[in-house]
C-alpha cells in the first residue's frame, strides 16, 4: 500500500460514483455535480500517473500535471455553460428534468 495506490483506487471509485450519478440522477443540477465528481476522479488518476513518474528531481511527471490543469479549466467552463443553460431553461420553460420524451413533433404548430 502506497500513497499512489490509495489515490489510484480513490480515483477509480470516484469515476464509478460520478458515472452512476451522471447516468441516473434525474435532476440536471445533480448530473452537473456528478460530472464534476467524475472529472475529479479522472484528474486524480492523472495525478497518480504523474506521481508514479517522479524523476529528475521532480515530485511528479510534469506533463500529466499540466493535462490536469488544462482539464480543470475546461471542466469549469463546461460547468458554467451547463449551469447557464439550466438556469435559462428554468426561467423560460419551468420544468428542468430532461428525461421526458422531447416534444419535438408539435412545436411548430
Amino acid at each position, binding site marked *: 500500500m502506497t*500513497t499512489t495506490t490509495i489515490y489510484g483506487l480513490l480515483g477509480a471509485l470516484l469515476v464509478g*460514483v460520478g*458515472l452512476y450519478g451522471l447516468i*441516473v440522477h434525474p435532476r440536471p443540477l445533480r448530473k452537473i*455535480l456528478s460530472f464534476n465528481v467524475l472529472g475529479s476522479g479522472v484528474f486524480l488518476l492523472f*495525478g497518480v500517473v504523474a506521481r508514479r*513518474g517522479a524523476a529528475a528531481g521532480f515530485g511528479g511527471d510534469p506533463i500529466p500535471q499540466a493535462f490536469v490543469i488544462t482539464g480543470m479549466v475546461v471542466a469549469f467552463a463546461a460547468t458554467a455553460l451547463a449551469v447557464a443553460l439550466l438556469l435559462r431553461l428554468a426561467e423560460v420553460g419551468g420544468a428542468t428534468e430532461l428525461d421526458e420524451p422531447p416534444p419535438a413533433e408539435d412545436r411548430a404548430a
Partner: protein
Amino acid sequence: MALVLDAGMALCLLALALFALTARASYSAVAGFVAYGLLVALAWVRLAAADVALTEAAIGSGLTGALLLGAAARLRASESTTVAWPSAARRAAAALLSTLVALGLAAVVLWLPQPAPTLAHEAAAGLPSTGLGNPVTGVLMAFRGVDTFLEKVVLVLAMVGVWSLAADERWGGRPGLRHEADPNGVLAFFARLVIPLGLVIGLYVFWVGADHPGGAFAGGTVVASMWLLAMMTRLADTPPIERRALRLALVVGPALFLLVGLAGLAFGGGFLAYPEAYAKPIILAIEVAMTLTVAVTMALLLAGPPLRSADGQ
C-alpha cells in the same frame, strides 16, 4: 502514519462524493461538494502536485462551488419535491456499468507498468532553454503551449455560449443581477479588507509560477474570485458585454500567444519557438496577458448571461 492520513482523506472524499450524489436537497448536495473540492486540493498536495493543488483550491472549491451554490439557490424554488427516478432495471444497469468501469480502472491502475514511464527527464532537459524553473509552467507555456493556447480559445467559445443565453433585448448589457448589499455592512467591510490582500496573493501566485508552483491559471482564478467578491458586495458591477475593452481583455491572452507564435514563424525560429535569450521575458509577457484573460473570463463565466441593459437597469 502518512498512509493513515491518505486513507482517511480518501474515505472522507468518497463519503462526501456519495453524499453529494444522494442528498435529497440539491443545496445540501452542493454544500457537500464544496467540502469535497477543498479536500481534493489537500489530496493534490499529497500527490506532490502543488501546481494542481493551487488550481484545484482556486477553481474546484472556490469558483465551481460558488457557481453551483448560486444555481442550487435559484433552482430551490422551482425544484419539485419529487422527481421521477429511472426504473429499477435502468438503475441496476447503470450501477453495473459504473461498477465495472470503477473495478476495471482500479485493477488497471494497480497493475500499471513498473518502473513507470515518465517524461520528467525530457522535461528537465528542455527546461533550461525556456529560462523557467517550474516544469509544469514549462509544459504549459513551451513544450505543449499549443494545448494551452487552444484551451484559451475554448474559454472564448464558452463565454460566447454563456452570453448566447441572454434575451435578445438584453444583448450588450451587464451580466447577472444587480447585487444588493449595504455599503457600510459587514460584508462590504470584509471585502474591503480581503480584496487587496487577495489581489496581492493572486499576483504572487502568478509571479512565482515561473520557478515555483503557481502560474497564470491559479493566479488568474484568485484574481477572478476577488473581482466576484467585489461584485457580490456591490463594490463593483459587472461591465456591459458590448464594451470593447472588456472584449479585448477576454482575448488578449490567446491573441498575444498567437502573435508571438507568428513572430517566431516569421523570424525563422518556428511557431511557438522562443529564442533562448528572450524565452523567459516572452513567456512572462504571455503569462501576464493570460492571467488577465483567465481572471476576466472565469469571473464572467460565473456571472452568467447579460440580464440588464448597459446602463444597469
